[in-house]
């Protein structure tokens, strides 16, 4: 029912959403998050970015995130696709698509998965700017977004 992929090739946003929704008439809502590369970060123009990850752990971490979402909400399918390797502005980086009978659950689960992914999955971005290469620093707002989801 769920699918996780890490790949260097571009992914087909349309094909993933179609495959998720088209055969299940119990689905009433599909919420999709697409993250794409911006050409500006921290005020500097970025020409290329390279995404490194921890093969093996990445898949396990994403599986744990998806399992957690499936335990919290009544869902009818989740797709997570994340690119690694070299990327350019406008390139899609990550896709999270969640299907459910009603929209509330799909919205909550989709945001949960991307918030968790941003703080728990072992990916690192390195940017190439006119001043040279630099590793992207973790955003405090990502930590805050993820803390919302902690069980208290």
């Amino acid at each position: 029912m769920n699918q996780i992929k890490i790949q260097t090739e571009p992914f087909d946003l349309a094909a993933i959403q179609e495959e998720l929704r088209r055969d299940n008439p119990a689905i009433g809502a599909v919420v999709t998050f697409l993250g794409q590369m911006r050409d500006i970060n921290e005020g500097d123009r970025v020409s290329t970015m390279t995404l490194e990850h921890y093969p093996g752990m990445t898949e396990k971490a994403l599986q744990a995130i998806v399992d957690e979402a499936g335990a919290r909400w009544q869902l009818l399918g989740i797709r997570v696709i994340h690119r690694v390797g070299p990327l350019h502005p406008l390139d899609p980086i990550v896709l999270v698509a969640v299907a459910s009978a009603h929209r509330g659950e799909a919205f909550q689960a989709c945001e949960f998965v991307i918030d968790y992914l941003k703080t728990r999955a072992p990916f690192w971005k390195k940017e190439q700017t006119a001043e040279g290469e630099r590793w992207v620093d973790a955003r405090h707002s990502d930590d805050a977004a993820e803390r919302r989801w902690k069980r208290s």
Partner: protein
Amino acid sequence: MIHMLYFARLREALQTGSETLDYTPELTSVSAIVERLKGRGDAWGEVFADDQTVLVAVNQEMCDLSTAVKDGDEVAFFPPVTGG
């Protein structure tokens, strides 16, 4: 033997992505491994200095300094993640 992995900024600073550590009985936790690595000095001392945020995974699960390790484990150090 402990299988060590280093990623991203750490990999570059330490100039290595992986190595094996001989397992010895006092390597009972992540913090014991950190102490051994810091003892190498130079870049190792800097990367694992107390004011640096370093994350650790044992056998591909996020954990912390108190986590136990045993012979054959995979231990990875890396900076805060920035994917998505």
